[in-house]
């Protein structure tokens, strides 16, 4: 049995893989630079218990997820990032349980960071972080159940 956060990360990774712009250029927890763009990387963030423990049966958590979009182009870089943001938003908000209705309570868009631009490489590189928070529930005695 895995921690339910792992189930959610796997589900979210599947949801953002195969989008029109970024296709299969999707990775999770990447520590090395991205080689093929446009691309997405998925990062797990804090996994809080916002309301504390007030139920002896279950724990409700809020898992932060960062989807990071990368583009390399001499065209308008934020236009390319906006296309990706639209697709990622639709992918994660069309089913707010992420296909895990027995685990996920809801998915909340948490806003996106400023788009970043670098002109240091052979083409302009753009990056933007897309933030979500996924609320889920697990047993008080077992985070995998």
């Amino acid at each position: 049995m895995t921690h339910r956060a792992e189930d959610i990360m796997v589900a979210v990774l599947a949801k953002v893989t195969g989008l029109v712009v970024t296709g299969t250029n999707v990775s999770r927890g990447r520590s090395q630079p991205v080689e093929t763009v446009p691309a997405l990387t998925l990062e797990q963030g804090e996994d809080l218990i916002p309301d504390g423990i007030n139920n002896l049966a279950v724990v409700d958590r809020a898992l932060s997820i960062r989807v990071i979009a990368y583009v390399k182009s001499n065209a308008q870089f934020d236009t390319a990032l906006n296309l990706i943001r639209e697709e990622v938003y639709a992918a994660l908000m069309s089913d707010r349980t992420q296909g895990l209705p027995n685990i996920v309570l809801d998915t909340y868009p948490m806003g996106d960071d400023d788009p970043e631009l670098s002109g240091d490489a052979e083409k302009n590189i753009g990056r933007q972080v897309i933030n979500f928070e996924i609320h889920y529930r697990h047993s008080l005695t077992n985070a995998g159940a």
Partner: protein
Amino acid sequence: MWLFFIKGKKMSVEDAADLASFFDTDEHAVVAVIESVNVSGVFDNDYIDALDVSGTVPMFTCAATDLYAIVPAVGRGTTAVINSVSYIIENIKNDGTGVAILILSEA
């Protein structure tokens, strides 16, 4: 590489013949085709990691006199073809000793 610093002043130690030998295509130099004119210089395309994306930094170093004499209209936006790849000149850095460094992006 190109300079001596004496009492805080930057001095060139190369004359035109020295620069010609530096940018000799029989040595390390290659030919860039700029506005249909051949200019000899050294092409670098080092690896870079910018915003967590792999890339390269294309630049072309040549004698400034050659560049401006042969291609007087060269400037930002001019196309340069090097090793069969088209680049756009994004910036020209003249180092004050007769050497020009063209900062490039892929077209």
